[in-house]
């Protein structure tokens, strides 16, 4: 699926940008107000986890933007990428932002973010499901096959996924 006609592609995928702006504006405000000042052992562990999720965010965003289709709206996309990060994850931008939400919780170390973050995660999930619905309508069986072989947000091993889906429940 790579019949690219890059000369006329318009980068018009605004929804992830808008959702991310809303998501991280709210989280940043809450983090600034509620960030814990404790410096005990648990804080070191949480901050370490936060750094790990931040690195995942950077890796996924970088991987996703290697493909121009990421920046093109699903309604006008002429193909869907199936290589690189897309060989394992169908929505790397959503996955990256979900990881960053978790990183914010780890950095802030406050219960205030705990009820807020699931709302944003749900928002990213709804957006991913919406995109998939459109891509299924547009690309049909090709996208269905691709969907069978990949995960929505978490990249698991392709072979293991196939074996698990074969009914043996090995993993």
């Amino acid at each position, binding site marked *: 699926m790579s019949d690219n006609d890059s000369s006329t592609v318009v980068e018009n995928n605004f929804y992830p*940008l808008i959702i991310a702006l809303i998501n991280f504006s709210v989280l940043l405000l809450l983090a600034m107000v509620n*960030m814990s000042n404790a*410096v005990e052992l648990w804080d070191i562990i949480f901050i370490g986890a936060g750094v790990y999720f931040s690195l995942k965010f950077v890796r996924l965003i*970088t991987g996703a933007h290697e493909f121009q289709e990421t920046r*093109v709206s699903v309604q006008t996309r002429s193909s869907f990428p199936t290589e690189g990060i897309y060989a394992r994850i169908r929505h790397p931008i959503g996955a990256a932002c979900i990881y960053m939400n978790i990183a914010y919780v780890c950095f802030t170390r406050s219960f205030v973010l705990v009820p807020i973050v699931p709302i944003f995660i749900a928002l990213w999930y709804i957006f991913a499901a919406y995109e998939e619905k459109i891509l299924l309508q*547009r690309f049909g069986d090709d996208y269905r096959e691709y969907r069978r072989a990949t995960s929505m947000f978490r990249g698991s091993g392709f*072979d293991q996924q196939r074996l698990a889906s074969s*009914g*043996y429940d090995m993993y």
Partner: protein
Amino acid sequence: MTIETFFMGFKTVMMLQGDIGTDISNFLHLLLDPLLLALQDEGLRRTIFSTIIWSCMIVCGLVFIVYEIPIILTLISGSQTQSVAKQKRVTTDGRAEAATASASRHQTSLAKSQKEREKREAAVKQTGVSVTAKLVKDRELLRLSVRINNASNSHINMVVVDLDLPSGIDAEVGSFRMQRLGTINAGEVKTADFILRPMGGNPADIGGYVEFLGASYEVSKIALPVPDMEGISSE
């Protein structure tokens, strides 16, 4: 004499080991003590943590902005009214052009599938387990027999045959796209039969995989070879 030499050597090694241990300990103390001492200061720890946290947040924010800048610019300038690379629509005037494009795509697809088949056959040859497929026309239905010959020296477990059917060919009601054959002992042959209903699809495009656990508990996967067709003409 030999025993004395051995004990002398042993004592020297023990002495050296003791010295090396003390040296390493002293070196680590010199290196880490100032750090540990400094980290006992709660204010310093707080500053370090704060720096790490805000650095991560700012770096992540910047990465996001850098990659999204083209979209931000498009959003600000509002210039999304340009033509977009859509799937080409076939108009009445461009029928001939569309037909040529379609033929060219079909040709590319054939070359691609040929390459894929060669790759599959090479993979099958490499392993001790061989897979053959045979497609027989059975009235309006197709019977696909996948024969797995375990020519290796050890048994294989959890053998699964999973079909990738092209559009226009479906599994018949009561027949499944996946079958489990369980264990196949060394030198044994097992066959999985699938009943398929053709609805305009090309039987030569039927693909799939045979997956199994080898003796070393590694998951192996062999692509299904192009089926031998009996009484069927492929497109």
